[in-house]
């Protein structure tokens, strides 16, 4: 039985599955249900400054895209930070932390970008006994119009500045939650580190309009005929999140900076992928909002079973193992040759590989052989692009097979076993320059 316990910035939790700062963590009631269900930690729904709390719209806050059987693929929200009194939240956090000392409880904070505001709230949060703080520099909707959330996360200097205040005015570990609504995620991560932050968490939601109502010509969710962009999350955003996590994990300037991975984690496998890219914990929201808290059982058991199967005793045993294999395109081996292979016993002759290749790619798959519908790869045309694999509806029917011997019939060049990449390729003008 694998040990799933984690120690993230000294914050211990029985497993790496935390609930992200979001509606599921807005109240003691929800959080305690989550802990009863087995969640390792929560990041409490973002606190604002003292005084009258923010207000939410009273119409729909969420929009979604679905698969044909209403499987929720992406969720969009325009909800703001907690709309409950700061005092109520702080009191509940204190009580919950006391009752659940073995679980991680992180306070998410978003207050105006001035020193006094941060200086005012930090000691009050610290008094709750929270294990750490997460600076919400991520929400792209609503609060960003007031100079908070993503508006801060998009300016590395602000990130550094606020992180410094937080380190200065509190003893709690500081996690900076990053917005993906930025061109290069490495800059805000570097700024967080430079400001003394102990970790980053990412991604927050992505600015989005999920659909347009074609009867009213308004974005959804529609509030009295109008809509506003929301923050997009759920399974659809996972690839974006993985890339941003990897960018930070492999950036020499931030390599080793602890990361809490967020973005479309639905199953143990998603979590394992984030951890393999260096994350110390993962945060989940949409999956819980779709299915309820019980899913953590599947996540924890699935991760444990997989670790047992692979012989990993602890999370640290595989954490970051994929980071060295994320590289720049220019370092990919151009001498690695693959060809698609169609398993004729598995092929159901739908023809999708053919038409995808014929219409949109390299004309490398037949549709008719000897008057019969027959789909096979023509190696002399196949560039090994993998599109046919991706459109084939049958598992393992088409695979990419490495050519290890002989001559590539497409290029008529013999297989070269030496690694060679773009940096030294004769077509690369930069390489020519270097040769001179």
């Amino acid at each position, binding site marked *: 039985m694998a040990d799933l316990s984690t120690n993230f910035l000294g914050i211990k939790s029985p497993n790496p599955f935390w609930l992200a700062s979001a509606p599921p963590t807005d109240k003691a009631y929800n959080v305690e249900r989550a802990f009863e269900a087995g969640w390792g930690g929560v990041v409490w729904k973002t606190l604002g400054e003292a005084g009258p709390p923010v207000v939410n719209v009273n119409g729909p806050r969420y929009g979604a895209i679905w698969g044909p059987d209403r499987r929720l693929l992406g969720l969009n929200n325009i909800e703001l930070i907690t709309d409950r009194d700061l005092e109520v939240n702080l009191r509940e956090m204190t009580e919950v932390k006391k009752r659940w000392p073995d679980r991680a409880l992180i306070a998410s904070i978003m207050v105006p970008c001035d020193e006094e505001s941060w200086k005012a709230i930090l000691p009050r949060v610290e008094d709750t006994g929270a294990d750490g703080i997460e600076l919400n520099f991520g929400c792209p909707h609503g609060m960003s119009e007031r100079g908070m959330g993503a508006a801060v996360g998009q300016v590395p200097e602000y990130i550094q500045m606020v992180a410094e205040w937080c380190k200065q005015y509190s003893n709690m570990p500081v996690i900076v939650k990053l917005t993906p609504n930025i061109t290069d995620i490495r800059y805000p991560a570097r700024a967080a580190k430079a400001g003394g932050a102990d970790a980053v968490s990412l991604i927050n939601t992505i600015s989005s309009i999920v659909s347009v109502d074609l009867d009213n010509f308004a974005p959804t969710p529609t509030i009295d005929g109008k809509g506003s962009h929301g923050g997009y999350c759920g399974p659809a955003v996972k690839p974006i999140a993985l890339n941003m996590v990897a960018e930070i994990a492999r950036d020499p300037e931030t390599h080793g900076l602890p990361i809490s991975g967020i973005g479309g984690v639905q199953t143990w496998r998603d979590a394992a992928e984030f951890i393999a890219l260096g994350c110390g914990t993962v945060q989940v929201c949409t999956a819980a909002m779709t299915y309820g808290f019980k899913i953590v059982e599947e996540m924890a058991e699935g991760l444990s079973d997989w670790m047992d199967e692979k012989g990993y005793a602890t999370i640290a045993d595989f954490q970051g193992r994929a980071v060295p294999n994320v590289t720049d395109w220019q370092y990919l081996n151009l001498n690695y040759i693959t060809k698609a292979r169609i398993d004729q016993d598995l092929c159901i002759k739908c023809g*999708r590989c053919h038409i995808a290749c014929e219409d949109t790619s390299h004309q490398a798959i037949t549709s008719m052989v000897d008057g019969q519908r027959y789909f096979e790869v023509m190696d002399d045309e196949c560039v090994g692009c993998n599109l046919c694999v991706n459109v084939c509806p049958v598992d393992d029917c088409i695979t990419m097979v490495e050519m290890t011997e002989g001559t590539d019939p497409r290029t008529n060049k013999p297989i070269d076993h030496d690694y060679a990449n773009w940096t030294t390729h004769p077509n690369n003008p930069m390489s020519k320059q270097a040769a001179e």
Partner: protein
Amino acid sequence: MTVSETNDVKAHRLSSDDYIENFSDIHPPLTQHEAFVEADRCYFCYDAPCMTACPTSIDIPMFIRKIQADNPVGSAKTIFEQNIMGGMCARVCPTETLCEEVCVREVAEGKPVKIGLLQRYATDTFMEREQPHPFTRAAPTGKKIAVIGAGPAGLSCAHRLATLGHDVTVYEAREKAGGLNEYGIASYKTTNDFAQDEVDFILQIGGITIENGKALGRDITLDQLSADFDAVFLGVGLPGVNALGVDNDDAAGVIDAVDFIAVLRQAEDLSQLEVGRRVVVIGGGMTAIDAAMQSKLLGAEEVTVTYRRGQEHMNASLYEQELAQTNGIMIRHWMMPNSLAVSDGAVTAITMEKTELDASGKLVGTGEMVTIQADQVFKAIGQTPDATPLNGVSIELEKGRIRVDEHRRTSHQKVWAGGDCVAGGEDLTVASVEDGKVAAESIHKALMA
């Protein structure tokens, strides 16, 4: 075995709720959500096998994609372009031996995309939304065409001709148009008077006049029509029924299955229909199954279908056979009628002789007899062509059916034919629709040359 002397045939075997339940839609239509989910199962195959298998070549992947994209009306238009009776075909096509048999998901998982039900979803939605007719007529050509028979072949031909700008008069012997759609298909396959709704839909194109109660050879002659019209299309079906070939087959309770089905389809009150307590159906085709099923649903206690050959030789699809069996109908193979027991002029039992194939592959009786008690015996051993109404007009026949070329043109210069009355056909609604469509295009080409 003691043979009952009492002939038990009566109406009102069931409660009125039972009749409603038994004759409700056998395959309830898909809801919108079910249609989305099912449509998503379609792989949008290239050179799709389903499309090739469809006698009318409906672009099945495209109509399914349109359902998936929430455009059921556009989907129905795709269907109607190739098959103006797409609504009825969605109900009666043996899809398990046509499009769904070759669906790649049938090959992969034994679970084809439910093409028939999706087609019904699209066409029903079109009808329910009371859309304007999807086609408009071309400019008038001034040509007049006579169509004999308002069944699937005739109506399909008439619709395509009218669309092409011709004026069409359809002569129909019966009181209603629709042919077998109206008179010859089990009622649980086409509920709520769908056949007539579809006729109305087809006629919306304009330019088609239907003359009911006009039978070829009785009220009209082919000679006269070919003189009065620019072209004639024969879609007269198969008016005759094969005989059992045993004595007493005129006894009360010995009934042509097609007549039984026609009466049932036209009945306003099913509870008034008489049915035997024990029913035997002779035959192995769709008509046999339809008659057996409906006897059972009318309250017959024991229904047996007998067929002279094996299960694999039956014309009824495997699906239809299983439907009958799961409804408690016994199907017995390898036996042929030998004699009928009659009491007071009514049948009480039928004795069957078991059969086998001899060394040369010929079907022969074994001499072993089996007697099955029966209050009714339905004959469903095939319908036959009748050339008499052609009144000696010279048209080549083939085994009694009209010979046509690939364009459905007969040996007569001005006459085309299609549907069950032509040689070499499949005796399917969808094939008849295709015949009518192909003939119309050929007529158009000939007249406009």
